[in-house]
Structures are given as structure tokens and as C-alpha cells.
């Protein structure tokens, strides 16, 4: 200890000779302040960028905006095709302390990928809303969008929990969640093959071959994905029409679990 101090002494004396006394202290103080600021800033950044968002995705007319309104206020609202995203903080009712940010993204073909790009990094969970009535007609489009979401690099890396909400169950012709699951698995199975065989993109962009979905050789199954996938039936409009409540206890429970 003394030896070290002895070795340092000449250096300190040299320093003191170089600079006037108070300047050394002020320089050290300034450096300290800067270091502390950087640490605080990093901490704040870290907290802000933690993934606290639940994204509502789906095709056009699936019922995302109505679901968004119902979850937040419980009231029925008329809706039009969304052109931009809406976000609000949602308090999970059972546990008052946690809250998540619900983000409703537009489903139109020209916009969906752009908004997904913007918000995918912040996604803690994804709710994929499916129109159960029009599903038979739209199965290929639903599967394509779902495929695009699932093979995305960021989504694969973060593996947010995925809930497929089969909406519009109040209509009698609506398909059940089981049927939808089976159909989607079959469709995604075919899509794996056709998408990887598509002509390569113009640039030869970084994703030379799109990521393989599920296991090779075996038929595609939602259990093969790195994230947890659940299917739930719900109805944003509610069986009693516009005045009554929406039927989505399954959805609320899942949100509580995920938050």
C-alpha cells in the first residue's frame, strides 16, 4: 500500500505541477458527472425499450379496432378501415399494478408490413385476429399474413406469445377454433414449400433463404414454433348486440397471463 502510494506520488506531483490545483478537481468532477449521466440514461433507455406492447394484427375487417375499443372502454363503437395505428395503455383488471400498451395496427395489405416493421421490436405478445365467418374464403390470405409474421427475424428472436383470436363468433356460420387451427396448419405446411421456392428477391437481400418454419420432414404444427401459441374464440360485438358486453373472457385471461 505504501509502496503503491510511493509509486504514485511522483506522478501525482507531476500532475499537480502541470495543472493548477483547483482545475484537477473540477476536471475530475466533470468526468464523474458525465459518467453518472450516462449510467442513468442507459437505465432509463433500458426501461423504456423493454417490450411492453401487445400488437393486434389481422386482415382487413377482422375486428381489430372494435376489439381494441371494447378492451379499453367496454363500449361498442362504429369503426372504419384504419389507416394508422392506435395505441393506449391497458390495465389488466385482475392485477392493478401491471399494465401493457395495446397497439392496434391497420390490416390493409399496403400498410400492414410497414407498421409491423415499426412495432415488432417492442412486441411482448401478438394477438392475431381472424374473421371466423369469412375464414373459408380467406384462408390463403390469413395463412400468408401469419406466415410473414412468423418467419420475421425479430419475431423469431424474441418469440412473443401468440394468441390466435377467432373473432365474430356471435354469427352462427362462424367456424370453431379447432377447425381454424387445422386449416391453418395445413395451409402453412404448403406455404413453407411454395414460399421458399419463390424467385429470389431483387437485391439478393440478407435473407437469402427465408427461415424454415417448424421442423423439416414433418407436417407443420403450431407446437413446433419457438413461441407459445394458443387459440381462443371471442366476439367483439357480443351475443347481445351493441348494447351488451363483448364475449372475450378467454382473451382477457390470456392478456392477464401475458402481462
Amino acid at each position, binding site marked *: 500500500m505504501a509502496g503503491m502510494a510511493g509509486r504514485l506520488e511522483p506522478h501525482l506531483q507531476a500532475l499537480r505541477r502541470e495543472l493548477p490545483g483547483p482545475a484537477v478537481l473540477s476536471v475530475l468532477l466533470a468526468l464523474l458527472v458525465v459518467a453518472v449521466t450516462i449510467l442513468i440514461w442507459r437505465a432509463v433507455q433500458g426501461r423504456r425499450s423493454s417490450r411492453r406492447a401487445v400488437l393486434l394484427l389481422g386482415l382487413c375487417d377482422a375486428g381489430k*379496432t372494435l376489439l*381494441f*375499443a371494447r378492451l*379499453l*372502454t367496454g*363500449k361498442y*363503437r*362504429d*369503426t*372504419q*378501415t*384504419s*389507416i*394508422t*395505428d*392506435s*395505441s*393506449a*395503455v391497458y390495465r389488466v383488471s385482475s392485477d392493478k399494478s401491471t399494465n401493457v400498451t395495446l397497439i*392496434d395496427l*391497420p390490416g*390493409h*395489405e*399496403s*400498410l400492414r*408490413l*410497414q407498421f409491423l416493421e415499426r412495432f415488432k421490436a417492442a412486441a411482448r405478445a401478438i394477438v392475431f385476429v381472424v374473421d371466423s365467418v369469412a375464414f373459408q374464403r380467406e384462408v*390463403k*390470405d390469413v395463412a*400468408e399474413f401469419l406466415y410473414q409474421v412468423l418467419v420475421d427475424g425479430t419475431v423469431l428472436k424474441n418469440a412473443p406469445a401468440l394468441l390466435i383470436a377467432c373473432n365474430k363468433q356471435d354469427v352462427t356460420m362462424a367456424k370453431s377454433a379447432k377447425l381454424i387451427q387445422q386449416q391453418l396448419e395445413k395451409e402453412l405446411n*404448403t*406455404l413453407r*414449400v*411454395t*414460399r421458399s*421456392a*419463390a*424467385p*429470389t*428477391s*431483387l*437485391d439478393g*437481400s440478407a435473407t437469402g433463404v427465408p427461415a424454415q418454419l417448424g421442423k423439416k420432414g414433418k407436417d407443420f404444427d403450431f407446437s413446433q414454433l419457438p413461441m407459445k401459441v394458443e387459440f381462443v374464440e371471442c366476439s367483439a360485438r357480443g351475443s347481445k348486440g351493441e348494447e351488451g358486453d363483448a364475449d372475450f373472457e378467454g382473451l382477457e385471461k390470456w392478456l392477464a397471463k401475458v402481462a
Partner: protein
Amino acid sequence: MLDFFTIFSKGGLVLWCFQGVRGPAATAPVNALIRSVLLQERGGNNSFTHEALTLKYKLDNQFELVFVVGFQKILTLTYVDKLIDDVHKEFRDKYRNEFQQKGALGLLNGTFDFKDDFMRLLRDAEESSKVRAPTVMKTFEQSLKSQKTVKCMIETRGEKPKEKVKTKKNKGSKKEGAEAVTASGKASVGEKQQPSPAGDREELTKDEILQKNREEFFRRHMKAGEKSSKSPKPEVQKEKGKKPRVWDLGNSNAKVLDYSNPATNGSAEACPAEEFDPDRALGDRNREPGRLYDLEYESEDEAEEEKVLQNPSKPSVKKGGLGGMFGMLKGLVGSKSLTREDMDPVLEKMKDHLIAKNVAAEIAVQLCESVAKKLEGKVMGTFTTVTSTVKQALQEALVQILQPQRRVDVLRDVMDAQRHRRPYVVTFCGVNGVGKSTNLAKISFWLIENGFSVLIAACDTFRAGAVEQLRTHTRRLNALHPPESHGGRTMVQLYEKGYGKDAAGIAMEAISYARNQGFDVVLVDTAGRMQDNAPLMTALAKLIAVNAPDLVLFVGEALVGNEAVDQLVKFNKALADHSMAQTPRLIDGIVLTKFDTIDDKVGAAISMTYITSKPIVFVGTGQTYCDLRSLNAKAVVAALMKA
């Protein structure tokens, strides 16, 4: 009078709605408006027709609201624009607090009780349109006619032509004087007086001959032709020389009809030598005889023009210097909302940039208009400049346009057709020389690689060598993928019936042949045709209407500029006109060829997708079988926006 009036947020929540007289639900027409206008960047003009309704809309970009009014198409209501503006202002002022609150929750929880205000505004607007009294006719005393004197209105026939002749004569004499002056200046050149021919010219008067010769002489020697001197000549001639017409052919004398100047034609010594100026004729004395010089590159002229153009723009920059600096600071720090004047110079520059990148001119204009509409009134964030905001918005708009509006997965659809045991028919159409046959071969190679068998129908029965070209491709493809490696079946076959036959008939036979033989895909190659050629367009429309292909691909080259708009519009129109069905088959997709010949002038992609709103299915980047790509929207937009 109005059918409905809705106010909704851009996020999709309807804030307030007014259902008019007997209107049906407003959602369907408004959705159609959103999908076809706002999302396809056609927001230039603010009205849109959907079935029986006309919809007018206004965007509020500050609070992200949309105001839409719908009324019957047959009515022409003049107060609608003013009504929208008034409602916009009132609504915004009344509910400013809800909007400035935390975004969506404010919209969700707020109750927008706007009915009374709206009815009041509507009543005001309707009354203001009725108030204008019918215009009263002016009485005779008020008109100008009663103030003219009687004398000046009387026209006398005889006076006018004389005045005209006098003035012409004055002009003529003045011109002669001018000529005399310049003639004396040119005395050094030599004698210029042409010998006035005495003999044959009895018909023309002497001074007319003199004048005529003088004019010829000066026309040859002076660069700036005195054209005005010619105009009095015909008039003077008409007045004076009424030549007697000699109709009897027997009496026509060759000499009478010979008006040529004997001085110049014939006798060589009478031809004045000084007319031929060797310097002027040969030009540059220093040139080597017999050598062909290159085209001179005039770079200094262009540089001068640029300097001239830049100078006027500089003073305007200097003028706005001080104000601009304060404005910039204000923009950096506070919340500044964008106005049209701020955006106009930036948009002009972006428009020129897009046109330089080969986007069709009218599309660039419409795009910039739409972006301006979207950004007007928007509040910029801190530390963002107008340029960056506009560029960002334009980039988003371009990516939006290039995103396909429907699924682009040919293999998936082929699999579907395979399951139903029918062939998947693809038709290629386009103008001459864009690469239809080449890209057809590339696409058949890709399909074979994926295990589908292809039948190529040679419906180009016009161009010499078209069938042989496809036969060569078939042979090559079969050599690359022999039947042995695919379980004994030939992967590609050509169906052709020679030249000169009807293309639609060949296509139909080819499809039924494919169905019998179990081919998976039929690729129909048609002859190239100009979009203005009506009979050929009819023939193409007939081929497509009769055979009902699964996919109609328009092949366009990436080199095309403004022509792309015309080609696509006319092709679609022809297909729509000649189809008997309710929903005619239009172009389903675009193949963009010769993409390797353009470096980053990729604007043709934008023009084509904007016009048809159909996706670009394939991109051709060369002439070998592997040069087939799919479109990457982000890469194309990056290349477009790159400086």
C-alpha cells in the same frame, strides 16, 4: 340533401355520424373511399364516386381525423366544400381538449355531441347557396352601345380597301428605301442590278420585276429574311396585274409560259460571279478535304444556361435568408405545423427527382399532390426539418404503392389447380419487343424446377420465327430437365399450329389438350401489339375473354417512361370494353423486364403499379433462364430515393 356526414379518426374509430334523408349505412362507401383513394395515394383531388354517391373528404393531419360527406351523384351541391371546411374548424375547436389528451383514450372516451352545431352549419350553408339573387339584365342605358355615336358605326364599303392599299404602298416604299440604303452599303460586292429582261415579260410591270429581283438578291445575301417585304407584294400584284388568262391550249406559246429568268438559267457569263461566295459555301477553310468530323459537343452552352437559371433562384434564397433562419430555429425547437408554402419547394424538387428517375410525369405530379394533402397541417416533431418529413412521407407512400394488394403466390395457385385436375393458364400480353417470349421461357424453367409440367401455347402466329424461338426453348429446357429425371414424363412441350391462324382458337385447343394430357400449367404467348392498334387489341381481348385464363400478365420493360401509363390504360380499356361478362378480366399482374439495363432509374415500377394497382409478379434481369426475380419493395424505393 346530404346522404351522410361522418367524422372518424385515422385509427378507425367513428367519432360522429350524421345519417341524412334516407341514406343506407355509411360504412361501405367510406371504406371504398379509404381503400381506393387514401391508401393508393390518389389523394390529389378530393372527390370520389362510388356507385350512386359522390363522396368528398377532408383530412386533418394535425389530429389525425378524416371528414367525409356523401351525397347523390346526380345532385350538384355547391355548398359542400365550404360546409366541410366550416365543420372541420368547428369540430376541431370544440373538441381540442379531447384530441390533445392521451391519443386514443381521449377519442374512445369522449362523447362527441355535434348534432346541433352541424345542423346549424348545414342550414347556413344551404341558405348561402340560395341567397344569390338571379342576375338582372342590364338596361339599354347602362350598356356601352348606347354611348357610341351614330357616325362611327356607319360602315361605308368603298373607303376601307383604299386605306389598306395606301398603307401597304407606304410600307412598300419604306422597304425599298431601306433596301436602297443597304444596297449602297453592299456596293463593294459588285454590281447587283439584274439586267431587266425586255422581251418576254409583257405581263409584269417594270417596277414589279425590279422589286422581285431585288428581293431575290437580298434574300440570298442576308440571313434574317425580310419576310415582311413579301406580304405587300402579293397584295400589290393582285391590285395591279390582272393577267389575262390564256385557256386555249393551241395558242399557248412555250415562251409565254416560260417565266424563268434567262439570266440565271443557261448563259453562264450572265450569272453574277459574286453571288457565289466560296467562303460561305465551304464553311471552314481549314478542314481537310474528305474527312468526316465528329459531332461537336456543346458543353459550354449548357453551362451558360445553367448559370442563367441559377441566378434568378439565388436572389430569392437571399431574400428568405433572415426569415428562413428564424423559421428554422422555430421549427427546430417548437412545434411547427406544415403549410403548403413550406412544402411546395421541397415537393417540386422531389417531383423533379422522381421524374429524373423515370417515373411517368403525371404520376409523379399526382403522388406529390397526395403527399402534400397528407402532410398539410401536420405538426412536426422536434429537430425534424420540412425536407426530412416530406421525404419520409414520400418514402412511405412509395412503399405503400409497391406492396401487392392481393396475394402474389403463383405456385400456391398452381397447386390448387392441380388438385382440381385442371391446368393453370397464364397469358402474356404486351407491346412489341418487351421480352414476352424470353420471360415465358424463364418462368417455365422456374415452374419445371418446382416439379410442374408446362405446355407452351404458341399463339404468336404473326411474327416470323416466333414458333421456332419457342421450339428452341422447349428443346433446351427438355435437355436441362430430361424426362428420366422426372419420372418419365416430358416436363415441357410446345403446342403450335404454324403461322397465320387465329390465336384465340389455338389457345382454346391448347388448353383442352393440356387438360387431356394432364399438364399442370399452360403458358400462352401472344404477339406483341401497339396499344393504339384497335383490331389487334380486339383480337387480344377476344382471346382473353374466350379462354378465361387464371392469370393475365402484362409484360412491360423497365426502360419505358411516360409510355407505360398509356400502354396500361389502353390495354385495360380494351380488355374491359370487349368482354361480355359483368366483371371483365383485366390485367392481373405485371412482369417487369430488362431490369438489368437500368441502374437505379427504377421509376417504371412505380408508374405501372400506380396505374393498375396490380402487383409486380416477376422481374426479369437478364436473358438466361435463372434471371427471374421477385420484387423487393424496399430496395426499389431505396434506389428511387437515393440522391
